[in-house]
């Protein structure tokens, strides 16, 4: 194999022209070389330009963008100089892209078979009679069960993981020599993501193709890439081997980014990276990172650093790379005070059962009962004052549903919710008293959706204050400012609209709105999953501080196990709307006992090139829980037999409150787990 680059971007700048005629660069002077068989990770937060790089490598620009400078070549072809015919023959052939959202990237009106055949017709030299056999072979290669059936499906009939596999198969159809992957596992469940990544690793090894893996997820990058390029505000700020970038980064941003990632192995709160990246074109003359950097000096403000070999030899764009190692890279936990956990129960859920479907009018006329298993069933949890309970599970596990039911937005089908020792709470918000309404507050996943776009921040914060405390006039105004300051935003935000705030700021406003009510219980529904990692860390820190100051109780729902670990005192694991395991965080993470918890934790990817996921169960997406027996029966790697299919497993509780629901005796489970590892 020769060492001539497959993909080469040299001094590439891309931007758009503003209304007034000046150009705003989105990418600035990107140099990137990808050699045959190499896999490169392109990491950065939203807006860093990493996806634009991947598309530019294919000679594709989004509407409005244009090349300002430099070139992009694939095997010597200048991608922006080729004519349409030449581009068409390269794209999807020797150079293929796997998109971020395969669900939307597959044509909805064409069957999977037709779309794959089209790729073959365009890019393979096969005889048309061989197409169908090759399609099946490709689907088998991406490990899709029953390829024959898949070819007849439409994209929407597949799960997210299956769609992603189809997209990979489609890319493989042209026998690519380079594969560009644009956030290929974002939005997928952890177990699915881990399986896809293993598949990609194997494919890269089998076919010898080069890969450019674009992602914000350092864990995924650590798993598949040899070399990592870190991007910030449209620039490459650091480049090096995966090991070096992940373990000894020499750029302050890379260090800060690593420190802000919650890790499974680390019970501390991650360190937040303050500030926000400059808008396109707003980087000024100096270093783009200067406003957020602890090492910033006058030099950094006036002169833009060049990408030059730093300590350890890897290229870095920093004036002070030699001092970068003074910056922390892991969290010490010093910055986060843990709140006291009381003993008095604040919230208790007793045999909670939730159903989404109501029987239709026809069924009711015929006297039919709904025999389908409930979406959420048999949930019994007690939460003490000042405690943070983490609820984790994959999509469809019913974790957000439970929160909505506690908040009264979705009346339960059975069971009861008791709050602060009172009589059971009325089932729906409309029936609850003002005091209960005030004391239980809910924070939503996406602030774009939970803040009314037509209200100013002042109007948003005034609502709970007027409703619960009857404030008005200057008292109201003062209180708003005070609340904003408590979430580290100033009074000058009052007149702004949500659309004029960054994602992190918006979520702070949502937090502020919840705390304006002086709540005793705050329900957090995936509150950080719409945010970038560095921003996420800041929001987690804020939540932690507010709790320490006010003794609030949290129910914290997340699909991200590391985030839950960083914040929770106790954690409950849900599968298909049923509890599998519950216990103190330290115990559950140290000794995951239920087979599902084991599978889930095993699939988590750490930003560490030396860890590998343990994949013990298939990544099947189940649409509904089984009618009886253990909810995990169909995927369980430790299933013992018919008992799992028919009998609901019993709770097994240890002295420290760590409990699991499994037919296998705890000791046996632990013995098996030790034998495996």
């Amino acid at each position, binding site marked *: 194999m020769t060492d001539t680059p497959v993909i080469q971007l040299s001094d590439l700048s891309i931007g758009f022209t503003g209304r007034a005629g000046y150009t705003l660069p989105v990418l600035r002077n990107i140099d990137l070389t990808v050699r045959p068989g190499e896999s490169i990770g392109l990491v950065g937060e939203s807006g860093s330009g990493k996806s634009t790089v991947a*598309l530019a490598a*294919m000679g*594709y620009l989004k*509407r409005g963008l244009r090349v300002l400078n430099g070139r992009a070549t694939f095997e010597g072809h200048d991608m922006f100089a080729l004519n*349409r015919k030449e*581009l*068409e*023959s*390269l*794209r*999807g*052939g020797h150079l*293929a*892209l796997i*998109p971020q*959202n395969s669900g*939307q*990237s*597959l*044509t*909805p*009106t*064409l069957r999977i078979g037709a779309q794959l055949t*089209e*790729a073959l017709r*365009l*890019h393979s030299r096969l005889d048309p009679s061989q197409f169908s056999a090759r399609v099946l072979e490709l689907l088998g290669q991406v490990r899709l069960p029953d390829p024959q059936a898949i070819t007849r499906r*439409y994209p*929407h*009939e597949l799960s997210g993981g299956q769609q992603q596999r189809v997209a990979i198969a*489609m890319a493989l159809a*042209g026998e690519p020599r380079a594969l560009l992957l644009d956030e290929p596992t974002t939005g997928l469940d952890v177990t699915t993501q881990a399986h896809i990544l293993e598949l990609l690793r194997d494919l890269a090894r089998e076919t010898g193709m080069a890969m450019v893996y674009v992602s914000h997820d350092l864990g995924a990058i650590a798993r598949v890439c040899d070399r990592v390029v870190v991007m910030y505000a449209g620039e490459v700020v650091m480049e090096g081997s995966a090991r070096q970038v992940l373990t000894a980064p020499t750029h302050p941003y890379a260090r800060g980014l690593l420190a802000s990632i919650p890790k499974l192995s680390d019970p501390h709160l991650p360190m937040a990276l303050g500030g926000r990246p400059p808008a396109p074109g707003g980087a000024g003359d100096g270093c783009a990172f200067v406003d957020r950097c602890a090492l910033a000096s006058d030099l950094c403000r006036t002169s833009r650093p060049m990408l030059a070999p730093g300590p350890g030899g890897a290229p870095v764009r920093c004036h002070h790379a030699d001092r970068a190692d003074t910056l922390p890279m892991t969290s010490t936990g010093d910055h986060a005070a843990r709140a006291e956990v009381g003993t008095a129960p604040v919230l208790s859920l007793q045999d909670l059962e939730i159903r989404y479907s109501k029987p239709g009018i026809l069924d009711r006329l015929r006297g039919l009962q709904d025999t389908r298993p409930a979406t959420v069933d048999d949930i019994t949890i007690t939460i003490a004052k000042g405690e943070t309970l983490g609820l984790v599970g994959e999509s469809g596990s019913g974790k957000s549903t439970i929160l909505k039911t506690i908040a009264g937005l979705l009346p339960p089908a059975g069971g009861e919710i008791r709050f602060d020792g009172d009589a059971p709470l009325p089932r729906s918000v409309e029936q609850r008293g003002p005091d209960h309404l005030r004391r239980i507050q809910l924070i939503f996943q996406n602030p774009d959706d939970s803040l009314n776009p037509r209200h100013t921040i002042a109007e948003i914060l005034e609502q709970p204050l007027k409703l619960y405390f009857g404030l008005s006039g200057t008292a109201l105004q003062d209180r708003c400012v005070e609340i904003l300051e408590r979430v580290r935003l100033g009074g000058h935000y009052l007149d702004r609209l949500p659309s004029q705030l960054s994602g992190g700021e918006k979520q702070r406003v949502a937090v502020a709105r919840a705390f304006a009510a002086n709540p005793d219980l705050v329900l957090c529904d995936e509150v950080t999953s719409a945010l970038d990692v560095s921003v996420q860390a800041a929001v987690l820190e804020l939540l932690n501080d507010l709790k320490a100051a006010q003794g609030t109780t949290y129910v914290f729902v997340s699909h991200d196990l590391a985030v839950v670990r960083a914040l929770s005192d106790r954690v409950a694991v849900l599968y298909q709307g049923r509890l599998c395991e519950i216990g103190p965080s330290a115990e559950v993470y140290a000794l995951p006992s239920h087979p599902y918890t084991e599978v889930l934790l095993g699939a988590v990817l750490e930003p560490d090139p030396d860890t590998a996921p343990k994949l013990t169960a298939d990544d099947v997406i189940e649409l509904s829980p089984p009618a009886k027996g253990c909810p995990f029966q169909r995927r369980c790697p430790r299933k013992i037999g018919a008992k799992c299919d028919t009998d609901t497993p019993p709770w097994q509780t240890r002295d420290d409150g760590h409990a699991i629901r499994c037919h296998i005796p705890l000791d046996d489970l632990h013995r098996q787990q030790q034998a495996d590892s």
Partner: protein
Amino acid sequence: MLQMFLRRLFLGAITVAIVSMIIFAGVEILPGDACTAFLEREAQGRVLENCREELDLNRPAVVRYLDWASDALRGDLGVSANGQRSIAEMVGARLQNSLLLAACALIVGVPTAIFLGVVSGLWRDRPVDLILSTGAIFAMTIPEFVSATVLILVFSVWLGWLPGIVLTSANAPASEFFPEIILPVVVLAMVMTAHILRTVRSSVIEVMNSDYVQMATLKGVPYWRIVFRHALPNALLPAINVVALTIAWLLGGVVVIEVVFNYPGLGRMMIDAISDRDLPVVQAIALIVATVYVGVNLTADLLTMVANPRLRTLYTRK
């Protein structure tokens, strides 16, 4: 799928039932009835009583509604108030003429609209698009009697190419309406084309910006193949519903055009019936038009369901 189909059918039937009630109730609420309208100034005392007796108007409204509705279900629309003629017979020829007009307008309009809409969407913001889009606004907003008047002025009065008025009698066979039908068809087709064009254009633009079209581009699929195979099947789905609405509009709202061109269709009959206060005829026409409206929309919904795999299997699964 079948269940969904039946559900839609059921909802459609309910809508028609509600319409029939509204029509009947509406006519009931209005001051006067068939007899006062028919007898006009003589409507008083014995004469009025006798007439009401004869037409069974003294029974409770509910009973009369049920009678009327069940007769209508069997195709018997009653008799007109003044002429004592069977309404079904009167309406038959007129309905045929209206359908002929609608069919011609559709045959001309729909393909033109789709073609121009696609062109306009693909060449978005280019001169071609600007001309078509602006033209569409003109065509859809200028009142039909205005454009009809202008067309008659130009093609009939000044150039003398086409007859500006229909002289054929209502019961003549379809072939005799040519070439008189051309101008009304052009006016109708213009308005219709404008509406469909705008929908198709915005749908094409949306689809061409979709992730899957970007993906197809990055897969190296040639442009025209992307357009025809990946984009258009998705982009044309919304057109089905708009076409349905225009068909419904064609049958009900073309009254003005029929008057302008003196075309013997259902619309002009409706105007005459309203002017004469011939309420049974008005009721019958309203019911026919409403049923067609509901039926066409229902068909469009079902067609969309069949054509869109996403809807198709969504319903099958549930």
